[in-house]
């Protein structure tokens, strides 16, 4: 009998300690903890790791300069695997039990919406650094009082790209287009946005076929042959990262790039580094490019990143860097860390940064950034990979964005 009790006690104690482990409070030093969550595993782990790399560099820089409000900062990293329910849990855990006083939400789209719902109930400042879905901040019903976005945005990209592509298509007399985008929210919504503006600038544009491969689909053969069948003059694609690389490799063996012009906003350094036979002459936007804006500060940051991590920065890297720069300035200005105080300081704030098209980026009243570098050029197989970059006209972007927001009944 006593043996039974022993076992029972052992079992109970074991279970209790296992259950208690997650919320054993940690001793709090005077360090200021900043919670960062992202996708750090699986096929798009690069999103998280290249964000984290940039943040580690920022942490070193800020601590060397004395930290925030005299406190050294420590960024706490969490992997949500991109799952919304896990993202929601992590956001709560970072604030409630890990003692984080600021949040960097480096999640991709759907998880960032889940994080925003948590932030709404917590009165903590949060900056979304990787979600490009416009409605996150544009829709007043979804926007949260203390959540901001420091990232490029779908509708900005669509306007800038469409203006560039309309000029390009007119000059080359390309009227028949095909689209090929990943079959999920980003791919569908952004393709629709591009086409809407594209048709506005080039009314005789005709979309003769659409292909919708799955995200992470290993084989694009049937999609490629479908596109070749349709004989378009040009192809617009929103595939990115590994999918874009596979698409280019599989398209190459069908000589797809000799049969139609190709335009994509998504050629960035990792794609450039991975694809061995990149076709020349793809029209592409700059996600992050050391040579655009062509300033010493931008070049210096890109080189420093490369030197430290032995890989090139991504679009996500600069966005997270700028988020920390915004926090730095806002905390100085507000002299506080609370959500409401920081929200007031961030709204309308303009900072100097190498990633702005004119050396500055502004946080607009609707909690999203403007003035960051967007440009389009064409690819070449060697450095600097994208040449003849034309900067987008931000005046025009904002004009059309406002029109779009009215259509969506956001304003």
């Amino acid at each position, binding site marked *: 009998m006593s043996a039974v009790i022993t076992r029972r006690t052992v079992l109970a104690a074991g279970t209790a300690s296992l259950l208690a482990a997650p919320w054993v409070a940690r001793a709090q030093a005077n360090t200021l903890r900043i919670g960062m969550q992202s996708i*750090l*595993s*699986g*096929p798009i*782990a*690069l999103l*998280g*790791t290249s964000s984290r790399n940039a943040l580690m560099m920022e942490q070193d820089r800020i601590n060397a300069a004395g930290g925030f409000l005299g406190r050294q900062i420590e960024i706490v990293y969490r992997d949500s695997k991109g799952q919304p329910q896990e993202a929601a849990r992590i956001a709560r855990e970072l604030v409630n039990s890990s003692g984080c006083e600021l949040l960097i939400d480096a999640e991709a789209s759907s998880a960032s919406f889940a994080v925003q719902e948590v932030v709404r109930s917590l009165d903590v400042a949060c900056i979304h650094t990787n979600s490009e879905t416009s409605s996150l901040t544009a829709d007043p019903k979804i926007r949260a009082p203390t959540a901001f976005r420091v990232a490029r945005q779908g509708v900005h990209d669509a306007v800038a790209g469409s203006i560039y592509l309309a000029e390009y298509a007119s000059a080359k007399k390309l009227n028949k287009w095909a689209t090929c985008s990943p*079959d999920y929210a980003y791919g569908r919504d952004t393709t629709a946005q591009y086409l809407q503006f594209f048709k506005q600038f080039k009314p005789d544009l005709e979309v003769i*076929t*659409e*292909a*919708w491969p*799955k995200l*992470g*689909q*290993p*084989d694009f*053969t*049937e*999609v*490629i*042959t*479908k596109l*070749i*069948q349709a004989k378009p003059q040009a192809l617009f694609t929103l595939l990115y*990262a*590994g*999918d874009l*690389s*596979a698409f280019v*490799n*599989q398209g*190459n*063996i*069908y*000589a797809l790039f000799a049969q139609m012009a190709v335009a994509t906003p998504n050629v960035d350094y*990792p794609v450039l580094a*991975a*694809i*061995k*036979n990149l076709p020349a002459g793809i029209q592409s936007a700059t996600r992050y490019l050391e040579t655009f804006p062509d300033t010493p500060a931008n070049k210096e940051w890109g080189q420093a990143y490369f030197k430290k991590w032995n*890989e090139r920065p991504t679009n996500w890297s600069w966005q997270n860097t700028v988020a920390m720069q915004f926090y730095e300035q806002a905390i100085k200005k507000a002299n506080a860390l609370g959500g409401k105080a920081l929200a007031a300081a961030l709204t309308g704030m303009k900072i100097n940064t190498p990633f702005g098209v004119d050396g500055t980026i502004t946080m607009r009243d609707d909690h999203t950034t403007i003035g960051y570098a967007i440009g389009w050029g064409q690819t070449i197989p060697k450095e600097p990979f994208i040449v003849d970059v034309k900067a987008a006209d931000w005046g025009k972007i904002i004009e059309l964005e406002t029109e779009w927001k009215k259509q969506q009944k956001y304003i």
Partner: protein
Amino acid sequence: MDLHALGACLTTSACVVTQTTSGLIVGMLLFLVAAGVTLIFGVLKIVNFAHGTFYMLGGYVAYTALGVTDSYMLAVLAGALSMALFGVVFERALISRVYGSNVLMQLLICYAVVLIFDDLVKIVWGPEFHAMGMPQAFQVPPLFIAGGVVPPFYAVLIGIAALIAIVLGVGLSTTRLGKTVRAAAINAQMVSALGVNTTLLFAIVFAVGGGLAGLAGALAAPVRSLSPGMGFSVLIESFIVTVIGGMGSIAGALASALLIGLVRGFGTIGFPQFTDGLIYIVMIAILLLRPQGLFGRRL
């Protein structure tokens, strides 16, 4: 849904030929992976949920081997042989401990292996994706056959896959080893009682199954992206193939892989945003009307 486009495609020979050939290509690569799943299940009654991991590792090993040897052929061999070896280790170290226990225990062990190796790949090769690049020999313009487009690289892949289908089919039905394997599939205990070393036999089956998955991963590496976790979608697809074809039937795997390839080839024209749903509906219909699959024996 775009039934109009589908109708238009079905009435033009160029479209039918091109989408059929691309369906063949998709199907044959699928067959290479699924052949291993179905072989292992047929003989050992083990559902190998870790099969996608073999495919992934085969691709990564080939990627590294290409960097070292600069020969695509050696890279493919390295991918296939290393996974054959890994298959034996996997069977001896883990799977052999759960023969006869229920399918959930097998699932648990395989899933643990998937989790572990996805992370190990990330540690060794990094989280970013890699592309192997097309071997020099295949950087040639595509061939045009009867109005359809066939790249030489794919022609070679189809040839290899077809060869393997034949070798497996003939090997299983005529060689002594093949006959023993088929006998073991029906009654392993009896085969063991007749003096055959079933331990060795089971290890060989895993070596062949793993090797085939590794081969598929390595063969496809020039045109597909390598990333941690890439085995998952391949695993799901090869399950569908196995179930539709009949679990344990090589001919069934071949037929259903081609069927899936064709559904994809024409689905992308008629139902561009519901191709996957279409495939699951086919799978459910088959399971209901003919649970043992197209070519399977009733269990």
